[in-house]
């Protein structure tokens, strides 16, 4: 059948126009459909990946099950942080019919305060649809069973067993380990663009301080998830066990700390505000890092009440501050070995050269005093360290200048932060002429050298640095680095002794060490009585320090220096002590700081001795050396009003103390 082609045979004008217009309309329709196809290509081919992801996110729902948090152990495997079962009641918003009725029924089974109820109703509004809400936790087994039995009458309520963090030693490790607490908005922000979904899980705790914070990701593990297919209303259509993700438990973290030493440090420091760091010289392991007063980390896991927190935050002795890392103090006389070593290294000071100490010296426009009124008399370097003679070190510091001292101090770790795996170290300050110029745009005044030489003035350090200083002095060769975290998930972290050596001459170091040995073992040494370990041939070397926190006026000095006990706490001197032992074969180094504690020899050194004893007794090599432990010599209580430092009684004039060598000490 032949039909007229609409293109060429124009029957009349109207038909011609119509045919052209039909052609136009067909073109428009074709163009429209082509455009739709183009759009389809864009959505389905070019942007496929993006929409695929969105579709999967719609379709599947992962119910998160948080992994058990990794344990934290001490060097011998003693548990410092673990998890305990925690019976909870959760509320699922999408399964809830009548909030009021459900909570009424629930309040007959477990105690539910009215304000907690209001809080829950508020939370219900703000929580995402599929995130359950924690109604109560730490239920007793009876309460937990009661809810489980009545579960069918409580739609939207589930009782589950989660884990809660627990610190068996409470406060002993609170500053090192830190604690976990509820995830805050700031934590979520810090987690970046796509935070781990487990952070939204009710009752999930995140590390907030110390090791818990620094190693949070390793300790956290990977959350497991059960995959369910859901419809648009969030109803579960189907479970997909094959899509389940198994939870990966958090890694076990082993610390270098020794629970016994740490606990002893806490006992010894008692209610004092102080810090103690003990280091294994052979490996750099920190076996004790204590700060007192401490706080119970378990309280933070549940969440502190306002008054509880304020009580901790407002207390004068600052329990929340980690004094081992964040507290910086003038090291006082514990710094004198640095000045001595700098003098020897400079070649400008002969160790046998004697300086006469009369108890005071005039410099600039005022007197500088020695701690001993009346002076020490003629002192060589060994005597000056042993007696902690201030005049000797004033003169020495003046002679060699601040920069040589600063250089040595920095080589021993002062003024720097160490990579020990947790944050919060305050590096303190080692002053120098350059620092003075840059910081204050002023020249170094010679008077400052005097203070610097005896560890005061602008100089400040924390307990960790002082322990490292003692360790490097004892070890002699290596710029030993501290190590706190021994292994993570079974993988050992690098040891602290893989460090370059110290660029100082051995005989110079020996000289300084001999001085420190004399401090502790020469009967005239400042810390003789406080340093007797009672461990037979195993002896300690040390250096006491008493750092002033106030200026003693001339008038006050004339009227007799006031004893610390008569001063308000915050004006008392800091007591410091550094030590290493056994001094002929050093294995452990330590620092003790007692903030506003009084005299270094009277307060800090006895505490150091007690802590050091535990460390030494736990060491198999040391125990082998002690054939017959001797009883401790009697320590006479320090009478109030005595001199600030060096309470050792003056020896009978005719008894000359035997010379000390590194090889062996004649015990008195």
């Amino acid at each position, binding site marked *: 059948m032949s039909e007229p082609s609409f293109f060429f045979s124009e029957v009349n004008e109207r038909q011609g*126009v119509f045919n052209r217009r*039909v052609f136009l309309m*067909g073109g428009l329709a074709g163009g*429209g459909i082509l455009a*739709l196809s183009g*759009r389809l290509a864009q959505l*389905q081919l070019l942007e496929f990946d993006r929409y695929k992801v969105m579709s999967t996110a719609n379709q599947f729902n992962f119910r998160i099950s948080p992994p058990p948090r990794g344990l934290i152990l001490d060097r011998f495997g003693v548990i410092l942080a673990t998890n305990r079962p925690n019976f909870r009641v959760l509320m699922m918003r999408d399964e809830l019919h009548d909030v009021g009725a459900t909570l009424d029924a629930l309040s007959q089974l477990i105690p539910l305060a009215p304000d907690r109820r209001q809080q829950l109703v508020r939370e219900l509004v703000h929580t995402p649809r599929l995130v359950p809400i924690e109604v109560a936790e730490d239920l007793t087994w009876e309460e937990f069973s009661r809810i489980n039995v009545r579960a069918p009458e409580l739609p939207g309520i589930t009782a589950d067993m989660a884990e809660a963090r627990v610190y068996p030693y409470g406060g002993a490790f609170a500053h090192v380990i830190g604690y976990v607490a509820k995830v805050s908005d700031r934590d979520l922000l810090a987690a970046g663009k796509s935070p781990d979904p487990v952070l939204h899980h009710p009752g999930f705790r995140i590390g907030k301080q110390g090791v818990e914070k620094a190693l949070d990701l390793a300790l956290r593990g990977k959350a497991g998830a059960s995959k369910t297919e859901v419809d648009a209303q969030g109803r579960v259509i189907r479970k997909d066990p094959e899509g389940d993700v198994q939870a990966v438990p958090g890694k076990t973290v082993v610390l270098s700390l020794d629970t016994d030493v740490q606990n002893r440090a806490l006992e010894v420091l008692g209610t004092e505000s102080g810090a103690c760091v003990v280091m294994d010289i052979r490996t750099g392991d920190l076996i004790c890092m204590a700060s007192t007063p401490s706080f119970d980390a378990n309280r933070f896991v549940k969440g502190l009440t306002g008054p509880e927190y304020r009580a901790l935050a407002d207390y004068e002795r600052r329990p929340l501050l980690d004094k081992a890392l964040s507290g910086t103090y003038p090291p006082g006389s514990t710094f004198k070995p640095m000045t001595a070593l700098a003098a020897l290294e400079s070649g400008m000071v002969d160790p046998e050269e004697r300086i006469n100490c009369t108890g005071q010296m005039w410099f600039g426009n005022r007197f500088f005093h020695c701690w001993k009124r009346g002076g020490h008399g003629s002192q060589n370097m060994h005597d000056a360290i042993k007696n902690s003679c201030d005049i000797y070190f004033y003169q020495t510091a003046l002679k060699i200048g601040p920069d040589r001292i600063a250089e040595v101090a920095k080589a021993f770790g002062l003024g720097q932060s160490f990579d020990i795996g947790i944050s919060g170290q305050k590096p303190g300050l080692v002053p120098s002429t350059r620092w003075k110029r840059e910081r204050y745009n002023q020249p170094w005044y010679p008077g400052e050298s005097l203070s610097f030489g005896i560890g005061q003035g602008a100089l400040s350090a924390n307990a960790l640095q002082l322990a490292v200083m003692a360790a490097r002095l004892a070890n002699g060769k290596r710029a030993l680095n501290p190590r706190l975290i021994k292994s993570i998930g079974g993988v050992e972290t690098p040891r602290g002794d893989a460090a370059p050596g110290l660029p100082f001459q051995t005989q110079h170091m020996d000289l300084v060490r001999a001085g420190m040995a004399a401090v502790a073992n020469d009967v005239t040494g400042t810390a003789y009585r406080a340093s007797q370990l009672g461990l037979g041939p195993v002896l300690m070397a040390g250096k006491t320090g008493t750092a002033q926190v106030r200026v003693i006026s001339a008038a006050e000095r004339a009227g007799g220096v006031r004893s610390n006990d008569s001063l308000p706490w915050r004006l008392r001197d800091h007591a410091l002590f550094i030590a290493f032992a056994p001094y002929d074969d050093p294995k452990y180094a330590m620092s003790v700081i007692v903030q506003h504690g009084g005299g270094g020899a009277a307060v800090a050194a006895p505490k150091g001795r007690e802590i050091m004893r535990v460390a030494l007794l736990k060491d198999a090599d040391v125990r082998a050396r002690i054939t017959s432990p001797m009883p401790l010599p009697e320590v006479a209580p320090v009478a109030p009003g005595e001199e600030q430092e060096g309470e050792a009684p003056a020896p009978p004039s005719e008894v000359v103390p035997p010379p000390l060598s590194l090889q062996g000490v004649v015990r008195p």
Partner: protein
Amino acid sequence: MTAGGLTRPGERNRLVVKFSEIDWTLALLICLIAGMGSIMLYSIAGLSWAPWAANHLVRFGLCFALMVVLAMVDLRVWFVSAYPVYAIGLVLLLAVEVVGDVSLGAQRWLNLGFVRLQPSEIMKIGLVLALARFYHGLPADEARFSWRLFVPVALIGVPTLLVAHQPDLGTAVLLAATGLSVMMLAGLSLRVVGALALSALAAIPPVVMFVLHDYQRNRILTFLNPEADPSGSGYHIMQSKIALGSGGLLGKGFGLGSQSQLDFLPEKHTDFIFATLAEEFGFVGCVSVLALYLATITIALRIASVSHSHFGRLGSAGVTATFALYVLINGAMVMGLAPVVGVPMPMLSFGGTVMLTVMIGFGLVQAVRVHRYSEITSGRGTLV
């Protein structure tokens, strides 16, 4: 059947001859699209004939039969009934204004007791018929541009405004666009078309801001930025785009479209059925179905162009334009190119009224094809 056989007087009026003159290619294409619709409805219901797929097929069967019957109806009968159909539509629209059911905040339905009638659907056919009849008697130069064009403008304008007032924005736009298409096919000056298009574009912002209801305005604002509030008013467009996009090249497979099976997709069996198709059969499936639509439109337009009567030409091309507009508007809406307006995908979407309208339209197209040689001589385009 030979061409010679048809030259015998009266031969063309025999039913058997008429039946054989129906364009069976077009009929097959329509069946394919409706069949595809059934398949999708079967899938959406979770691989079940109830509640939609079987119903859809039965309705389509009835409508197909109606189309065949209407194809036999002499074109002169269509011509004569043009104005009455339009008049009935108009009366019913006015009746809806007065006594219509209010459902979903809009007066669209007239409850006749046994059936709920949507007068705007009758008007879609009535308008095309009335315009075709009017232009049948109008010379080319007057159709181009003259004062007499106030008649078609009124024919289009009155029902459009009534429908818009219900309010049913989608149908109003469809009516206006259909009317304009017929005027253009009849030879309206392209300059006028251009000017009208421009002024319509210019009128959009004030209409959106001051005339539309809040929910209509929100739909349009949402369309402009659907991702601003993906769980609120942008939800439909967003979920539809997710369904489309996640289909990819070959789709997720029959019955496996998660967006539609799990109710994320709104109106999945009616307005958004194309998104289901896209999700389960992918780009290939979509383009195939769009090709079926394009073939249908092309064949229908070709039928229009071979008609000997101007009424037949305009009538069949007019209903084809309506059909094409359905496809384009629904497609654009599902793909996020147009605001969400209640325009279904013809033959694919579930819904009796629209299918009836479209099939009556194809009945007219087939009637034009069957009666393509018949001349309609009676009179000019008077309003009687």
